[in-house]
């Protein structure tokens, strides 16, 4: 909502600088998003008060040497009138008396012909042989609009010689209106706020019509089909009106408020809408009479199937049955509150106007506006709620303005169909309730002062209470506890939030709970970051196609049920993800061009539609993606090794260790995403918690990743963390030295490291503290089909240093067990 200060001042005194008023409004919840200054100091190009003044055109003569130019003699209040050359089409030979914006030599103004804003200084020069050192300015040259077709013509009352900045310099407040402040979609609404915040009073405009015509009774009939959709329909009638341009002051105000002037009748409907917040519509009464072949019968009703209306933008619109219409006996004449019909609109030929001031339910208007994609100033107001009480004063005000600007005779009275008049909200508010919510004491007198300033009516009730009646323009005040909260907000914001004291919470501390899975999730993040992985967060909206790229050969991704967005913003964000890996692979591909080490992880939910309930399951997953070199190349190591499966496994193992998950194992498996033979599933406490492996080359290519191993893991975080022990035992640090023994065992190629390690551990007994595999050898020194696995064995007793003989016996037992169970032989 754009509010020119000059307009606002008509209804309320502004005793403070504009900046300060803007600040008070903002703090009270009416946010001033922007302050635009026009012509005054502070604007992009202030009008020089010495050199840009109101002038009067005394005479317009032809230019002796140019057909398209004229010579205008202008009185400007300083010495001799000046004669200037102009090509403005709205100054014609013979014209006299026009008031104009007149610029003298040295004045800075906008260049009228430049497509971009460029300012220039007026200098005297010859135009087609005639010297001219002054200029009549267009709107564009003043910075008022882009209009440079003619010069700006001021109202006849404009005082000659007055600096133009004094006459029409202005400041426009651009207000952000929150839904609860819909009443401030009007200059009067804003004036009420200013009055309450500055201790002023609102001066309401005159709402009496000078009705010189016959009564409206019998000249129009009004019926409302459903009063819940249309609470009121009021109409006035003015005959013998002359359609023409509005006066400059009204056009200027409309323009500053962001509305294009059209003609006096239409401009008045817009002007009064901006003034009162009540949208109005003007019909050509004679057209209505012609259509009705008699007295027009206006009926407000929902559309009937198959009805059409050509709206005033020339579009033929089919009308769905939920559209609320203004109709007459011949059919629709307007879409209620949204747009009028073309046939009945006011034209230059209109002689009589039927003015509609109605009230439509906001839900109906919003649905229609959205369905037809027809936002307008009227629907913006109706869609947020307009009080039915505003219809009558707005109708009276507008009709009288039409008479003042266009002449004619107003029919006496208002045809007003108002089946269920508005009932004001009444709320009992006590000082105790104010203290309970605000936490501070405000006296009943202070509360009453604030509410009265906002035009609420207050009656004392009991010792500490007030019975508060909301003014008609307040649709946002509820009843009961809610109504009290509504009033407390009014009291708080006018009193000032900055004057509310500050306290520490004194209320009882709620029972404190620890959320174990959440703590473990954060611990998982820390462990992975410590392991050298970068955390990423990716889009949770994706496409089935993206996820299908993980399973090459499966061409029917659509079969999978997804949580699908009904109104996607783009084709690549249409469903909620069911896997973290595609996002991670995209991050890796993006960064592959930038860095040689690509170690990432993401933790977050996936979304699985569940048949039983409407809401999907949102289980949390952990994904790890690793590729590239182990470190950035440097002068110390110009060629670091490449990440492979065992780097990924090392990270997963470190995580398991960090979470104290003991009973975990990795089993070879196959999975469409991974390369066969390089895939494992992770089993923790006999539960499968996920897969890890090197990505299948086809998948790698699908995600545009460079050659080289790409390692991925996706784990079910909830399955994993559910198995984390609440606590774990810490073993004592041995006091006696360990005995170290290395052994190398030759086994068949098919024997896995896990098989051999298991036999060693079980044969080792309590003295074997650790068995770490440190070498794998296949080659010429061994028969084919054989491999050697070397282990570093640590023997340890808690109470003594082991003797060589004890260690030797342990080692022998291990070697024998491996020979017996796996056919292993010690390597010579």
């Amino acid at each position, binding site marked *: 909502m754009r509010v020119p200060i000059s307009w606002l001042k008509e209804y309320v005194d502004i005793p403070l600088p504009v900046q300060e008023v803007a600040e008070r409004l903002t703090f009270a919840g009416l946010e001033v998003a922007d302050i635009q200054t026009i012509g005054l100091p502070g604007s992009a190009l202030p009008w020089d008060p010495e050199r840009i003044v109101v002038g009067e055109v005394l005479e317009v003569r032809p230019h002796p040497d140019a057909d398209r130019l004229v010579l205008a003699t202008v009185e400007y209040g300083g010495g001799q009138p000046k004669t200037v050359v102009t090509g403005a089409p709205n100054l014609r030979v013979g014209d006299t008396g026009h008031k104009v914006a007149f610029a003298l030599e040295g004045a800075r103004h906008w260049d009228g012909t430049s497509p971009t804003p460029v300012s220039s200084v007026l200098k005297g020069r010859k135009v087609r042989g005639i010297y001219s050192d002054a200029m009549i300015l267009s709107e564009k040259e003043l910075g008022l609009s882009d209009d440079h077709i003619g010069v700006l013509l001021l109202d006849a009352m404009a005082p000659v010689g007055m600096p133009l900045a004094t006459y029409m310099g202005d400041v426009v407040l651009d207000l952000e209106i929150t839904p609860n402040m819909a009443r401030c979609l009007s200059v009067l609404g804003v004036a009420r706020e200013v009055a309450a915040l500055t201790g002023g009073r609102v001066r309401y405009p005159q709402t009496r019509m000078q009705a010189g015509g016959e009564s409206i009774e019998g000249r129009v009939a009004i019926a409302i089909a459903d009063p819940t959709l249309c609470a009121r329909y009021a109409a006035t009638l003015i005959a013998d009106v002359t359609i023409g341009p509005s006066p400059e002051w009204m056009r200027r105000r409309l323009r500053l408020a962001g509305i294009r002037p059209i003609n006096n009748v239409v401009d008045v409907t817009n002007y009064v809408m901006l003034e009162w917040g009540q949208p109005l519509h003007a019909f050509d009464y004679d057209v209505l009479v012609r259509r009705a072949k008699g007295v027009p019968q206006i009926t407000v009703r929902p559309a009937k199937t198959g009805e059409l209306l050509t709206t005033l933008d020339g579009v033929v619109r089919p009308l769905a049955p939920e559209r609320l219409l203004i109709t007459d006996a011949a059919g629709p004449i307007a879409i209620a509150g949204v747009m009028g019909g073309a046939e009945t609109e006011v034209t230059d030929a209109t002689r009589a106007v039927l003015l509609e001031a109605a009230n439509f339910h906001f*839900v109906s208007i919003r649905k229609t506006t959205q369905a037809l994609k027809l936002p307008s100033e009227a629907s913006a107001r109706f869609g947020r709620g307009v009080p039915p009480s505003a219809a009558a004063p707005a109708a009276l005000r507008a009709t009288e303005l039409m008479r003042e600007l266009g002449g004619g005779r107003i029919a006496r009275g208002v045809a007003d169909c108002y089946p269920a008049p508005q009932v004001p909200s009444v709320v009992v508010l006590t000082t105790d309730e104010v203290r309970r919510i605000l936490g501070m004491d405000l006296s009943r007198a202070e509360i009453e002062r604030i509410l009265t300033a906002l035009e609420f009516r207050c009656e004392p009730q009991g010792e500490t209470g007030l019975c508060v009646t909301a003014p008609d323009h307040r649709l946002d005040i509820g009843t009961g506890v809610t109504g009290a909260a509504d009033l407390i907000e009014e009291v708080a914001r006018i009193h000032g939030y900055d004057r509310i004291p500050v306290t520490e919470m004194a209320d009882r501390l709620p029972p404190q*709970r620890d959320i174990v899975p*959440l703590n473990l999730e*954060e611990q998982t993040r820390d462990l992975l970051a410590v392991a*050298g992985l970068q955390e990423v967060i990716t889009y949770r909206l994706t496409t089935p196609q993206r996820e299908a790229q993980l399973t090459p050969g499966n061409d029917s991704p659509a079969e999978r049920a997804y949580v*699908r*967005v009904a109104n996607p913003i783009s084709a690549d964000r249409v469903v909620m993800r069911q896997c973290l890996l595609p996002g991670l692979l995209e991050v890796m591909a993006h960064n592959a061009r930038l860095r040689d080490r690509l170690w990432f992880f993401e933790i977050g939910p996936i979304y699985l539609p569940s048949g039983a309930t409407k*809401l999907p399951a949102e289980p949390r997953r952990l994904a790890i993606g690793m590729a590239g070199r182990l*470190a950035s190349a440097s002068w110390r190591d110009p060629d670091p090794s490449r990440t492979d499966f065992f780097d990924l496994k090392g990270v997963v193992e470190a995580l398991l260790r960090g979470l104290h998950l003991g009973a975990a194992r990795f089993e070879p498996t196959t999975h469409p995403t991974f390369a066969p033979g390089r895939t494992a599933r992770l089993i923790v406490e006999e539960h499968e918690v996920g897969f890890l492996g090197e990505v299948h080359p086809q998948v790698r290519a699908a995600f545009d990743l460079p050659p080289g191993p790409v390692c991925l893991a996706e784990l079910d975080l909830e399955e994993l963390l559910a198995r984390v022990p609440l606590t774990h035992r810490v073993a004592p640090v041995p006091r006696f030295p360990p005995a170290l023994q290395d052994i190398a065992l030759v086994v068949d190629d098919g024997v896995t490291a896990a098989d051999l390690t298991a036999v060693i551990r079980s044969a080792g007994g309590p003295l074997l503290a650790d068995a770490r595999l440190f070498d794998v050898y296949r080659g010429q020194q061994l028969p084919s089909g054989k491999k050697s696995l070397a282990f570093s064995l640590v023997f340890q007793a808690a109470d003594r240093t082991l003797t060589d003989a004890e260690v030797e016996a342990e080692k022998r037992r291990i070697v024998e067990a491996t020979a017996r169970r796996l056919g292993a032989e010690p390597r010579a």
Partner: protein
Amino acid sequence: MTDIPQALTVLQAEALTALEATADEAALEQVRVRYLGRKGSLAAILRGLADLPPAERPAVGKLANEVKERLEAALAARREALQAAARAAALAAERVDVTLPGRPVPMGRLHPSTQVLRRICQIWGDMGFQIYRSRDIETEEMNFELLNIPAHHPARDMWDTFYTMVDGILLRTHTSPGQIRAMREFCPQPIRVILPGMCYRYEQITARSEIQFHQVEGLAVGRHVSMTDLKGTLISFAHRMFGAVRRVRFRASHFPFTEPSAEMDVECMLCEGAGCVVCKQTGWLEILGCGMVHPEVLRNGGYDPAVYSGFAFGMGPERITMLKHRIEDIRYFWTNDLRFLEQF
């Protein structure tokens, strides 16, 4: 007859010169053997001692001992000097160019959103607000209706919503539905919770707007929770999050689920309130929205609004990160470019 004292003096002078001339420990050992060894010059001279008359022996013997001690001391000093020189030479030879870059340490890091979320949750945790995690995909009822935003209400315009193909199910537009879930879970206990989570808006992805972003919602409910508490608690938070010297102000605002509602501004940390591009010359940054929980919302959560009251607030961790670090493009957060992530 040999003059033993003179021979000792000559030997001492010779030996000292020879020690002085040694360049390393091997040469030093040769000199020691030559003069002080069992078959060395000093021993040879001392063998002549027996030929002296007994009366002369003590004086000459004393002199011989003095020479020996002097030479041994000089030898030790020389050894020390040579060792020090050798150490110095070795260290000099091992000198490196300390301006060469260090070996790169492959660091892992948390995403900036995680970092700021943790910081926010930690501060609130210290004030007794515990994390409550709520779901991303919500019912329209939880996301709107129960928060005092009826269907077709003008307040709905405040949120551009992604709906799903299932009627009445949407991607939450804010973390506020978690308020209802927390209230229904904990009623009639008092509540202090903080609700971090991802939210979704139907928006074009631009430098200024994203389809997903985090929010942290906070909720306190009890029998004695008032607007002065709201101010005090949020000011404490702001002082810890943005610095104890920052000024904080509250402006009236509107959210359907709180009343009275407010916006909290914090003095701009980039210009210290002087006015800059980030704060649009106002000196203030809009940090969070807050207010007293609306009676309808309390009622929907199971609390009697005539007895209980509460406050709620919500903030955007990405927005806070952007303001703090002067980040001008919100898209960086989900692009995960390492050149961005490595700066945190």
